[in-house]
């Protein structure tokens, strides 16, 4: 049996992913999380002196806090099973990755367990976020200095 026909057999036997259903679930879950985020930012704007622009930082922090509570009580895991990318893509999913790793490795101590493993899952996001930001900003700065584009 060559590789190609093997892959064919695997495709036949393996359960087909219900893409459409998954997308609907992701849409619903992600949408609800973002709608909650919008409400939270309205709260920050209404009761504190934050503008539309500045309210996004405390809103993100609040969402991570909510994610901590849900992760700690094991609820976020259930949301993740239902929502797929809908629970992973919002910042709450990033928070969940960090926080669940911290809780999981607590038994190995706070330095070697929590400290070392905290960004095990979320690390790539920070690494490639920072690196791509560096590349993009560098290219743009060079282009501006050469006079091709303006800020």
């Amino acid at each position, binding site marked *: 049996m060559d590789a190609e026909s093997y892959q064919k057999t695997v495709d036949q036997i393996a359960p087909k992913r219900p893409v459409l259903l998954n997308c609907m679930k992701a849409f619903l879950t992600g949408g609800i999380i973002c709608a909650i985020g919008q409400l939270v*930012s309205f709260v920050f704007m209404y009761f504190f002196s934050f503008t539309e622009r500045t309210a996004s930082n405390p*809103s993100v922090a609040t969402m991570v806090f909510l994610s901590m509570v849900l992760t700690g009580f094991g609820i976020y895991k259930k949301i993740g099973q239902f929502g797929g990318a809908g629970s992973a893509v919002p910042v709450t999913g990033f928070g969940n990755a960090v*926080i669940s790793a911290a809780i999981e490795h607590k038994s190995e101590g*706070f330095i070697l367990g929590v400290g070392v493993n905290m960004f095990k899952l979320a690390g*790539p996001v920070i690494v490639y976020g920072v690196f791509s930001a560096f590349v*993009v900003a*560098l290219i743009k700065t060079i282009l501006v200095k050469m006079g091709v584009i303006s800020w």
Partner: protein
Amino acid sequence: MIVSVIIAFIVGGLVCVIGQLLFDVAKLTPAHTLSLMVVIGSVLDGFGLYEPFIDFAGAGATIPITSFGNSLTHGALQEAEKHGFIGVLTGMFEVTSSGISAAIIFGVIAAILFKSKGKVS
């Protein structure tokens, strides 16, 4: 105001659908998907497209992880505008810190407060 919440719901939901398609159709792992989305956010800000997107969708644009790439790039560009090339290096965390610092702080607090319930995904 209700309109803003609905728009945040729809746009945020659609961004998550893109993530789900990367999971299911492109068959990427979650780590690859999220890294890719951060890079997309950062590139969009390079073209100056992410800020109008935030103006339009509010939390629908700031809550998904793409906004993380946007704010990193935005900080770097803001500083680069003021200080030239050195700003590219120093400005990066100027804008964005809230997501990362919140995750670190609440992560440690969670580790103190909660006990592991077996394997956490």
